[in-house]
């Protein structure tokens, strides 16, 4: 694998993966509310779309009850790749934390 094809994991994407791994599948709004202000309504959906394109999360539309009018909500869950990238990042972070001079 070339160095420029190593999956990247920016801070917000990492936070989303942390929340999804710890709390299970969540809606975009639930992610915003459980992030204590770190995620905003105005950006989280674009970030989720980008993560879905990268293969870190997958989403599913909820089914509307028969006769219901409106838009179905979209629920997000981490993929195997997303979990793997997060694990790798945690390992990397620990490795660098150990190398911090005392």
């Amino acid at each position: 694998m070339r160095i420029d094809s190593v999956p990247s994991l920016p801070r917000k994407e990492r936070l989303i993966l942390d929340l999804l791994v710890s709390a299970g599948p969540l809606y975009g709004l639930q992610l915003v509310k459980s992030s204590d202000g770190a995620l905003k309504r105005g950006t989280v959906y674009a970030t989720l779309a980008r993560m879905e394109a990268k293969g870190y999360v997958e989403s599913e539309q909820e089914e509307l009850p028969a006769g219901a009018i409106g838009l179905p909500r979209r629920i997000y869950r981490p993929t195997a790749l997303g979990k793997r990238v997060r694990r790798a990042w945690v390992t990397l972070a620990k490795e660098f934390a150990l190398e911090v001079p005392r």
Partner: protein
Amino acid sequence: MSRSTHNRSLPGTRFLDFARLIFPAQIIASVFSPAVADLRVELAEAGPSRITRFATRCRWYWALCSLVLVAPLSVRTSPVTGSSDAVVTVPNGGWLLVLLAGTLYLGTWSFFGSFVISTASAGVALAFAMRTWHDKHPAMVVEPWRLAALPPVQINLSAIRVAGDGPGLIFAVGTVLIVVVGLPGLWWFFVAAGLGSLLVAWRLFLRRSTEHSGLLRLIR
């Protein structure tokens, strides 16, 4: 109350209609529809208090406006394949062009003045007219392989393809009108050029139709 009327009254419906005008279906499905669905849920959970509901609406509409700016810069969709092939963090050329045009308009405001407003309004009106024409004439065949082979236009205005069809005519006539508004002293030049080009076009049309009918006679 009919279903469509009821739909229209749901919060976020008009915003989605607007977003559909400027964003592809993939971005609508992956970014804007989930946001509007969550808006409705939060608004329903806000309770009967008018102040809370108003605050929730304001928060969401601010968020949706931010999304309009953020989405094209963070998610790019593939014109041919599905959302799984979306490319990330590549700015959308169309939006960069809009940003560039906005900056140029602001920069030239001091010496072009109100002409800036007329050109911007006329440009938007022309864009909508061309888009409407395309929407109403779905018989036009789209050739994705040809589109894929073309280099992206980005900010090179001369690379924008103008076909010999309805939108092509709207583009040509609209551009001339905008220039006439900016340089009214040259109106006679554009009128003369327009008449001259009409004469040439009519001559070409006659010649080609004669050749065409001659060929048809030969074939028969």
